[in-house]
């Protein structure tokens, strides 16, 4: 049942490849449009966010862990999981921390509280 998900390269068909290319192209264009509209004010938290999102590669490490029987490969994959999870955890905490720094003007008129 998991033969397609749990890949061996052999079961990867041309139709899979074309679908994946389509997904890649659409996601890239969508990404460009989404990021172009991010205010410059938030470019730093945006980078923290996309850094964390790119550590979705942890999933690839997990899949390798599930497939392999070799200790060496298992170690490589586990190191991959540790590195990616460091990024995920620190990335999302950091996004929360930075975004909270941005405050609007105090609504009660002119002088800022001091």
């Amino acid at each position, binding site marked *: 049942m998991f033969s*397609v*998900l749990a890949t*061996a*390269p052999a079961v*990867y068909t041309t139709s899979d*490849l074309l679908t*994946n290319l389509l997904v*890649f192209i659409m*996601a890239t*264009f969508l*990404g460009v449009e*989404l*990021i172009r509209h991010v205010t410059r*004010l938030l*470019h*730093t*938290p*945006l*980078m*923290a*966010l*996309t850094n*964390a*999102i*790119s*550590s*979705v*590669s*942890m*999933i*690839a490490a*997990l*899949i*390798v*862990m599930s*497939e*392999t029987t*070799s200790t060496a*490969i*298992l170690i490589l*994959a*586990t*190191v*991959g*999981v*540790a*590195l*990616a999870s460091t*990024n*995920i955890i*620190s*990335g*999302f905490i*950091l996004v929360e921390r930075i*975004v909270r*720094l*941005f*405050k609007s*003007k105090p609504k009660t008129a002119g*002088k800022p509280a001091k």
Partner: protein
Amino acid sequence: MTLNLDDALALYVAAIVFFILSLRWMSDVKTAKWAGRSAALGMAIGIGATLVAYQIQQIDLLLGALLVGFVVGTPIALRVPTTALPQRTAVSQAFGSLAVALVGAAEYYDYAPNVNRFTMTVLSAEMILGFLTFAGSCIAFAKLQELIPGRPFVYPGKNFVSMVFLGAAGVAGAILVAEPSYGWALPVMAALSLVFGFLLVMGIGGADMPTVIAILNSYTGMSAAALGFVLNNKLLIVAGSLDGSSGFVLAVIMSQAMNRSFTNVLFGGVGQKVAKSAPGEKAQVEQRPVQSFSVADVATTLLNASSVVIVPGYGMAVAQAQHTVKEVTDILQEHGIDVKYGIHPVAGRMPGHMNVLLAEANVPYEQLWEMEKINPEFPQTDVVIVVGANDVTNPAARTKPDSPLYGMPIMNVDKAKTVIFIKRSMSPGFSGADNELFYLPNTWMVFGDAKKVLSDLTAALKEQG
């Protein structure tokens, strides 16, 4: 609980939706707080679905790895000062790219020697990108942390040598594609890619780091997407390409803000000019007269102004002067003076860096103005205070076609009635170009450390006000 293929795919779709919403919510400061949470939820769903669908057996290893991630990641995220965010971003990119590179290698060893050409091509490209980004991010970190000099490391034939290493890495990758059983080619390819990444970023100067960081960010995303192609995993493809395009767009914005192309940033136009022109010319240009003023003069002028714009640069971060800047702002606002901040897109060492520093000092975000919006305001501005910025205020970018800065969009601070330029010395900015602004009749130079000058200014303002 067991999940079949369709369940896992459905959960992946949900994770993708949360990632997309997350980027959408990051577009506005009012919704930004949901951005991180949404992406975190998407990530949890994606990882959870993978754990169950692929029936991961090595729970002990997994928990150990996650524990390491938690123990290392949490203090980094909670403790890093906002001035050091560029360094933290470089570290995080180093981690992310090393992870993808190692997983790529693990994939290869897992399949070898039965790797078809398509898979091996993607894997080779992915590992080259991963390893070069890892080395590049490490060097970017070292430069940002000032462990090594920030100036570009330039020598004759630099780009040729770098390209030879990249080409050789490509050849090693091609050998693996042609004959996947030649396992020796993998460490060779990895080493060559590492050397290329090292040389590439060594050749780029500190002030170009916003672009470099964005490009490396893009590479990490693209390698993750490549892993998705290898594993036929659409979540990896989507998340990787979102990150890839994000880094790309940011890099484009950064290089446009410097009026330079990608290639020019990566293969060094500005840095080389500095190296060539530095020794002889410096002494003579510094002879021109400038007007130096005391803090008391500045305080008087500020108190008589009705509008003030503050233009911060990386020097403000170095001097940790953002809180002192805010104190000056508060006093001026108490006197009914309108204060805005003008932020150049490449001010600082990473995209958006100045905004975060000022937000941390409790400057409301409505006061932070982008370059295009603040530039028309300068002719009506009484006083501009430049704190730790240099090249981005140089009018030579508009007027002198032979300047290395010519054509770069700048903050038109010279159009204001008075410009107060706080600076340590007369040394030129990163571009090596002498700042024409210093010699204009409406420019007042105040020499000294930004934080020291500004706290003296605070005292003088209190005294006179």
